[in-house]
């Protein structure tokens, strides 16, 4: 499950590059249309080469997605047996369920806080570590290091930190700050998870922004400094607008990966206390494998995808508006 989250994160940048390459190929194809007419077998050969990818796409992604959608319209009784078509029954059950509604609320709150926070910190760190200062590469590596730790292992490490008699409170004690309840309090549990996820995520997203910043031609900065532009102004008027594309990618990819957070919740809080960390992805898992109601869980997956699509579409809307 954790690895799936990981894959989606790593996989996204690849997916965004592909369309460009494909786009070029089609243009080239159009230019030589006349030549191609003389070689009717070429399309078939291309299809043959594409076949493994298409088959795995269908087998691993499209069919399961279809199965989930179909399953979400059915229900199964353990005592009476048999699959019964209930139409949108599972969906209306979910919408009438207080725990589910709370889970959506928690997920939205989490999304609104965690993404801007992670991106702002990642951007500031990226700016900091692209300055030509001694040791900046070393510090940069330290920030990236947590990516090497699987999310489940990070969660276990942080469970020791967050224990009431753990490292976190010992550290606060050094600073003469009273002991905090962390994961056992309804107010602090979600922020504690956000801190943990940011510890893992910020370094990763920073990488993309560093690449973006390094792509900015040096002469623009040189011209600006010749004109006597202040560093703050340069950050605001040069760096930020010119990394807008990687920034947009980071925003969308980070949002998606945060909507699918699972391992830390499962390991640290199990959605508690009082459902304050019951993110939708965990709620889906809980419904499917702890409660064992697979059909309602499939319905919730579909709703989770819907929520994700709405948020991502909204983000693209906003970004496109900027482009013009």
């Amino acid at each position, binding site marked *: 499950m954790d690895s799936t989250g990981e894959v989606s994160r790593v996989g996204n940048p690849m997916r965004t590059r592909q369309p460009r390459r494909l786009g070029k190929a089609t243009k080239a194809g159009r230019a030589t249309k006349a030549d191609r007419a003389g070689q009717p077998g070429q399309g078939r050969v291309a299809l043959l080469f594409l076949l493994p990818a298409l088959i795995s796409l269908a087998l691993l992604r499209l069919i399961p997605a279809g199965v989930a959608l179909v*399953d979400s319209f059915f229900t199964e009784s*353990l005592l009476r047996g048999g699959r019964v078509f209930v139409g949108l029954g599972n969906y209306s059950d979910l919408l009438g369920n207080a725990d589910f509604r709370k889970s959506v609320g928690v997920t939205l709150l989490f999304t609104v806080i965690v993404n801007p926070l992670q991106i702002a910190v990642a951007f500031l760190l990226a700016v900091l570590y692209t300055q030509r200062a001694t040791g900046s590469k070393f510090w940069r590596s330290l920030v990236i290091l947590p990516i090497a730790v699987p999310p489940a292992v990070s969660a276990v490490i942080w469970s020791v930190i967050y224990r009431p008699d753990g490292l976190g409170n010992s550290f606060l004690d050094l600073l003469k700050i009273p002991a905090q309840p962390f994961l056992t309090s309804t107010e602090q549990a979600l922020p504690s998870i956000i801190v943990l996820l940011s510890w893992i995520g910020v370094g990763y997203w920073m990488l993309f922004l560093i690449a973006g910043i390094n792509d900015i031609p040096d002469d623009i900065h040189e011209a600006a400094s010749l004109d006597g532009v202040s560093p703050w102004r340069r950050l605001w008027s040069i760096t930020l607008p010119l990394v807008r594309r990687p920034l947009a990618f980071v925003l969308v*990819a980070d949002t998606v990966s945060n909507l699918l957070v699972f391992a830390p919740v499962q390991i640290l809080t199990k959605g508690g206390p009082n459902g304050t960390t019951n993110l939708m992805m965990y709620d889906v898992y809980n419904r499917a494998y702890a409660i064992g109601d697979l059909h309602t869980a499939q319905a919730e997956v579909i709703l989770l995808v819907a929520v994700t699509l709405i948020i991502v579409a909204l983000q693209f809307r906003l970004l496109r508006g900027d482009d013009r």
Partner: protein
Amino acid sequence: MAPRAGRLIAGVFVVPVLLLAGCGGGSSSSNTAPAADQGPQTGTINVLGSDNAETYAPVIKAFESANAGIKVNYSQVPFDQFNSTLQQRLGAKDSTIDVYTVDQPRVSQLAAKGFLVDLTDLDAKTKAATSQASYDANHFRDKLWSLPMWNSTQFLFYNKSALKKAGVTPPTTDPEQRWTWEQVATAGKKAQQAGGTKYGLLLEQAEAYYQLQPLAESLGGGSGITGPDALTPAVTTDGWKKAMSWYGGTFASGLSPRGIGGFQTGPVFSNGNVAFFVGGPWDIGVFSSAKVDWGIAPMPYFEGGKPVTPTGSWSLGINPASKQQGMARKFIEFATLDTAGNLATTEATTIIPANTKSEAQYLPRLEKLAGSKSTGAAEIVSYEASKTAVGRPVSVGYIQFEEVMGKAFADIRNGTDAASRLETATSQLNEAWKSIK
């Protein structure tokens, strides 16, 4: 940007869906009679359980030397994830599990879902080998679905030096002189104040129904499940409310620590950080090497209530998707119905064997396990088994019940009002059981 969006969205869509794929729901048809094809006579069978591999090493060794050509490969899934992992793999008809450990209250649902092979042909043998309670616990709809491997009870462990420092006379091993929870709380507080220990009281499985059911039952609160089909929640009885508000209070007052979960609790006692610890026979083995000086007493009850102790443990069952059921049956029979085999399952981890003959050989060993510290343990085990033991309820909805109650206990522990949280649990149970009825 638009094509990018399209691809990303496609990516977003499939990821969560994948998580649920490949695990089609369990069929509700029950398995009847052992499958005709028992599979090969030799080879390697896979056993899945939640205990560490050392626990099963002795029985596997004994079995392999008695059955040439059969190898047993044991894999551990941590307890916290065990039930959901099983649900996932059995639902996907995963044939790489031949034998798995079955938590006894889950027998009914696992059997109803078709996740267990019918073992009714071993009924008479099982009845002769074990106690009535163990025999009953493995039945569902008059059929035998799993073979009882272990049994359990709970003790009150106390830190001798901490109580001495606080001037508290420790409880005795005599079940008739059993302490009340109120006495334990008062003495625990004294030990904390005297500076002997950081905490006064800790239950080993602080958020588990197994250990908390006796609290409610002691006050006459019932098991929490009623109704003709055992699918009606009853966790808002006076007994449940009173027991749970007392329990929540022990954390609010600092008598018990919050945030220490699952199986991190034992070390709190063995490191001398808590005065009283409620734990199982397995802890006698674990604590025998602890530096702390400790003693043992029967599990407490509430003042004005009756003594109730938990019982039951793990059984062994066969996965219907297994292609090697013949060898699997040989193994589970050896580990449960065979006196020496069953005894071997309790060699590395201290746990009471379910086989009556094995138990008779085992109890004197338990008594001596931790020297003078564990003196009296055997007497407590026998007394509780015959007088105070109350099993977990038999219901096809038990799996959901345990999950929902586990979350409620965690919230009550973290400070949520017990009465209102039990009300919430009731509606959550009704929701969860809707899909079963």
